[in-house]
């Protein structure tokens, strides 16, 4: 992954190839080995955006055998790893690249203009929401408020999630917020209100950045001997109610449960077996609700779960050890950064933020306002 922050002075396509080549190099592979792609080709003219597979082949000279996209919003690329794994397992591809790149003068949430990003994201709902001046923060604030009402969850419990992740970011030199230093629950509580009960430090970053994952057969990784293979053991998607007026409850998201149950069922492991997790954290409330919906604690017990510092490095279940979207990076299909950090942890390459002896990791990501979700179990093989 690149430096995360403002990449508006760079060409998106240059950054794209930089991270793709960096990831391939790390894997001991080269561009000509690639025969599969998840998601977009680098930005370019004309029809390039519509036919990413062909666009990619223009640069490799080696026709791709596989291309796919998923529609899980900010987790589209990380969820797409499930499709990549299926393609590889069925012999449809042998080396699949999964990049995400937010750089250059892109409009909207891939750009560096915060006002434009906020305005555009506000309209990623139905007119019956954005008419009233909703923002993504407001979309999640109503979830937080309902959760607090039903289960007694407190703003301090939400704040602990931000504190825990900032600790990780301070140990992550590539993160955006690490250099800003540690924060306290008091800092979060006194940061300015954005959409009550969510405050500035409950919210993710708005930044650019890029990263890439390479997937291939574990046996090939092992034969090559460069890295301990990190294997996808299970994967699942869950597509819940799109319209908030149609959802039976706004204190959680059924898609999360469906996705996690599928992933754990396929992996044949339990929640208690997980050593480290990456949970989409566009806002602090996401982590709390997703931990519940993914089954790491009972519904309504997320507050108590995070309160005793369980999600910090060294806690019962370290979560988003790189700082997450709150403090590391919230660029492009940012769920991919969640996966990149889990790979580092399971390779035991996470340096000062290493979760000791991590063998099993769980990634959980959301799209939209968490209506659509995915879960994946990864293991050190």
């Amino acid at each position, binding site marked *: 992954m690149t430096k995360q922050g403002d990449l508006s002075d760079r060409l998106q396509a240059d950054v794209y190839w930089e991270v793709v080549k960096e990831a391939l190099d790390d894997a001991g592979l080269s561009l000509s080995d690639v025969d599969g792609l998840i998601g977009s080709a680098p930005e370019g003219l004309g029809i390039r955006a519509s036919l990413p597979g062909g666009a990619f082949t223009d640069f490799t000279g080696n026709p791709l055998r596989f291309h796919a996209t998923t529609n899980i919003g900010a987790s589209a690329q990380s969820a797409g790893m499930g499709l990549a794994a299926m393609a590889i397992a069925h012999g449809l591809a042998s080396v699949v690249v999964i990049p995400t790149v937010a750089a250059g003068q892109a409009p909207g949430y891939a750009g560096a203009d915060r006002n434009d990003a906020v305005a555009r994201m506000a309209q990623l709902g139905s*007119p019956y929401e954005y008419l009233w001046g*909703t*923002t993504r923060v407001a979309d999640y604030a109503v979830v937080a*408020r*309902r959760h607090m009402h039903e289960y007694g969850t407190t703003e301090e419990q939400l704040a602990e999630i931000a504190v825990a992740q900032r600790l990780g970011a301070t140990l992550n030199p590539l993160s955006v917020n690490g250099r800003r230093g540690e924060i306290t629950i008091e800092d979060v509580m006194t940061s300015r209100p954005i959409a009550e009960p969510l405050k500035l430090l409950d919210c993710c970053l708005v930044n650019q950045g890029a990263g890439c994952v390479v997937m291939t057969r574990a046996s090939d990784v092992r034969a090559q001997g460069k890295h301990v293979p990190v294997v996808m053991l299970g994967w699942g998607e869950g597509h819940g109610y799109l319209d908030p007026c149609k959802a039976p409850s706004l204190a959680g998201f059924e898609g999360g449960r469906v996705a996690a149950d599928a992933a754990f069922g396929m992996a044949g492991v339990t929640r208690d077996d997980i050593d480290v997790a990456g949970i989409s954290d566009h806002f602090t409330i996401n982590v709390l609700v997703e931990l519940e919906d993914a089954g790491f604690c009972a519904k309504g017990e997320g507050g108590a779960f995070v309160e005793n510092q369980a999600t910090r490095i060294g806690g019962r279940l370290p979560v988003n050890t790189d700082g997450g979207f709150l403090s590391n990076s919230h660029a492009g299909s940012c769920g991919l950064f969640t996966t990149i950090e889990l790979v580092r942890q399971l390779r035991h390459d996470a340096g000062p933020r290493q979760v000791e002896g991590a063998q099993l990791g769980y990634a959980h990501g959301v799209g939209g306002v968490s209506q659509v979700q995915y879960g994946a179990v990864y293991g050190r093989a």
Partner: protein
Amino acid sequence: MADYEKLRPEITPLHEPFWDSVKRHQVELQRCDSCGAFRFIPTELCRCGSAASTWTPIAGTGEVYTYTVVHRAPTPAYQAEAPYVIAHVTVDEGPRMISVVVGCDPTDVHIGMPVTLVYEDVAPDLTLYKFTPAG
């Protein structure tokens, strides 16, 4: 009536009867001809599978299911009114509807608060529905 600078609804034929009813200051929601359930937002199909529905007036009363007080708005036109309250309201007929809560201090809004629908003609061609504390 100054130019309306906030976001406007996208009104396709499916949604037109709803917005027409708002313009008449008497909200109507689709009621399923088969199972009798009201639904919102307007959709082509009831969950029971029936496509047949009748636009039916609702009482316009309900209670706050959840809400937020927005301080950081999406555009300058909305920011001019911040802080404002956006609430999801369960109306007596069953569905939840989203709108702003007007006519009270934001700190007075709470989950369970009884509210009623009010109407505001914001432009010659656009009327909006909002909530205000009941009674």
